[in-house]
């Protein structure tokens, strides 16, 4: 059984695409599509890696990330922030919230794949 990755993203097509190439790389992919109960989803799925969108219905990705980092259990969880907003300001906010990686949409599938691999090995 491969490692578990949770993708929190509200755009179904993007979820589908990520699920496609990550599962082919041997990941067990779970998805969640809103911010409201994102923390519960993390607790339930207990992923080895989290891919997190920022503009989510209900709560922002940064908010979710900050609360995750506050929990000892998820303090070291590798988290890849994936957002359509790529300004410096957003990058800084991601870092401040405790993101392990920051990538902007649209992305290259191989880049995501490499980033996920690196985060998993680290």
């Amino acid at each position: 059984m491969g490692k578990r990755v949770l993708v929190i993203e509200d755009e179904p097509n993007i979820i589908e695409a990520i699920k496609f190439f990550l599962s082919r790389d041997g990941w067990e992919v779970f998805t969640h599509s809103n911010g409201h109960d994102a923390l519960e989803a993390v607790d339930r799925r207990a992923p080895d890696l989290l891919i997190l969108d920022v503009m989510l219905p209900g709560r922002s990705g940064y908010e979710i990330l900050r609360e995750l980092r506050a929990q000892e259990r998820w303090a070291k969880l590798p988290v890849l922030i994936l957002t359509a907003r790529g300004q410096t300001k957003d990058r800084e906010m991601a870092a401040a919230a405790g993101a392990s990686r920051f990538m902007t949409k649209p992305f290259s599938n191989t880049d995501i794949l490499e980033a996920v691999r690196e985060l998993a090995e680290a």
Partner: protein
Amino acid sequence: MNTVNLLILVCTVYVALLFLVAFVAERSAMRGRGRWLRSPMVYTLSLSIYCTAWTFYGAVGYAARSGLEYITIYLGPTIVMIGWWWVLRKLVRVGRAQRVTSIADLISARFGKSNLLAVGVTILAVVGTTPYIALQLQSVTLSFASFADAVGQPGPGDGARASTALWVAMGLALFTVLFGTRNLDANERHHGVVMAIAVEAVVKLVALLAVGVFVVWGLSGGVNETLARIDASKIGNWQMDGGRWAALTFLSAAACLCLPRMFQVMVVENADEAHLRTASWAFPGYLLLMSLFVVPIAVMGLERLPEGANPDLFVLTLPLAEGQTALAIFSFLGGFSSATSMVIVAALALATMVSNHMVMPLWLRWTGGRASVSGDVRHVVLLSRRISIAGVVALGYVYYRTTGGGAALASIGLVSFAGVAQVLPVMIGGLYWRGATRLGALAGLSVGFGLWGYALFLPSLGGGIMPQDILANGPLGIAWLRPQALFGIEGLDPLVHAVLWSLLLNALTFFTVSLATFPTPLERLQGAQFVNVLNQAGSARSWSAGAAQAEDLMVMAQRILGAPEAQAFFEQEAERQSGRAVRPGALPEPNPDFLQRLERELSGSVGAATAHAMVAQIVGGASVSVRELLAVADETAQMIEYSDRLEAQSKELAATAAKLREANDKLTRLSVQKDAFLSQISHELRTPMTSIRAFSEILRDTADVSPEEQRKYSSIIHDESVRLTRLLDDLLDLSVLENGQVNLNIRQGDLREALDKAVSAAAAEGDAGLRVLREDAAAPIRLETDFDRLGQVFINLIANARKYCDAAAPELRITTRPLSDGQVQVDFVDNGSGIPLEARDLIFEKFARASPQRAGGAGLGLSICRQIMERLGGAVDYLPSERNAHFRVTLPATAAAARPARGKPKLTN
């Protein structure tokens, strides 16, 4: 050489010496080196003209007759100098500020420059002073005769006596003319005269002290013996008459202020206000020394000299009787000095008044103002002044000849004092009471002068002038009008009686008439200047020395020019004056040349009039004329106007700045909004692009994609491309609508048909899960509008219902209704749960999505709808019903019925 000739020689030498002193002083003053002439000591000594021959000889006689009462004559001025110092200071300040030339001028100036008043005071002064001048002539003659008698030389007969008086009178007139009218100084200062008087003051004091010392130590044998003799004499048993004592003290105090000659030396000749400070202690000191030996001389005179000897001449006859010729000559010189100095100054003062207030006005009237050339007037003034001096002295001489000089010296002096004292109420009132008026002053003076003449002066002349009958029974037998018992008050000393009534009624009349009359504008102005002179002039500091003046100028200049500039200017001026380099901080001599330059320098900053006024204030201590004040006011007004304009401009600037700030804030807000909008657009564009890229990479890079997956992924790419295109279309549409660049295609049509088209178009776009129910108005509704745009709105609303209606079997009810005001209403009500309360305000904003569900729209639809409806003259609103989403479109049936476009969404029920 016999003793009388020696005396004449000594006198001649002495007179020549006085001429020399006056000449030298005048020359020094002319050359501007007269600082020593203006010393406080000279000023104090010049005040000693208060001590005339009456005080020199008469005090001893007074003491011999009336005991210590003579002290009142010294007490009055002492009280004035020490206790009334503030009155003096104000008097001097006013005198200098108004360039007053005499006491008549002062009173006239105070009450609106009334010449009538000046004439009145002049007459009063002449009448009051003439006997006094006669008295001086008499004392000289008398003392000369006594001297001649005592040394056993042939005494001059009556004719010789008269000629002595004549010679003396002529000599004094000559001296006064020579040194009193050398030039027409604007401020009437006579350095030569003052200097000569100061010398005479010293001579008379030393002479009297010499006689006193001789009497006490030479004759009496020491202080204790003298005191014992005094106790033994009748002076020792003298009883004080309180009323008389007070009246005399008051009189002499008043005289000190009002006597024309005192006013001349105290106010007119005053070079510096600060001199008063010295005089206030030095002059009482002088008087004290003058009175020190009066009683011993009187006592010794009574004791040693034969019964019947004139006590008024003890000062002279006592040394003579004891064989002390030299001392006697010295004593004679003292008396001579007292007499001459008084006559000179009195003649000068009176002549100024007579000339200025009587001769000149008459002459000007006579010539009809033809003499407009100043040199001409100057010549006339000098001539009239000279004639006046001669006239005044001649008057005194004639008076002396007429009365024969019988009355005791002291009594003439007191009558004279009481006469001039009548000016006191008006003078003090004028200085301290702004309500005093010209008519009040005239009335008060007339009453006082009249009463004095009636109750004191005329009776004092003896029975020849006033019939004994009137004195005893009153005029026409009216008892209460008896001159020495007015209003039935008897038993008073005649002097006290006269002083009491005349001054009391004088002051009362002055006061009541002043209250009852109104001052003219000029009187008001002058009154204010007199009463407020101390405030106007600022500090009462003295500028006695040139250095102090320069320093004050420097201080002022620094305030106006700035310290470094002022310092540089002053140093440069000092350098110019000395002709060589000066040390830093050196001050120039404040000479006219420098002052002019300073004024020019200052006028650059404060205006010419102000500069002149400021410099004049410091240098002259002089007043600023009304015209100068007006000029200053003008300048000030200009500056105020200028600063007002500046203020208005700065207000305008502030307003402009505020507007700019507002505009800037608006721009900043817009910029923030624009950033947010762009950021939104970026997000909305990136999302479909992300899917497109991701799936195209999958299709490109993955070998084993199943055909089914291939189809699915291709259609995702297709759908997202369509979404992207629609988003771009919407953005462009919105941009065009918002900029108002949209071209409407207005045509006639039917609402029902438009809705039919929209419903079928919406159905074509997605799955047909939504049931559309129609409730059309009975009659067809004709519209005149842009049907393409309206259809766009309808499609959007129907599509929204399909996307967001959360009912199990979604339904949309479309109702049309024509309104009475030419409007048409179309309601879109679904059966879902409606839009959450907190989102209702947002749905018409760009990129706002009420629903969390991904519905494919960019969130621009309702924004576009609102823009379109506004362009069509209608509106689209969300109606908050209890449940269900309820949109209402309102639009005018015809273009003519269009409402003005609304700027903001308005929720109506």
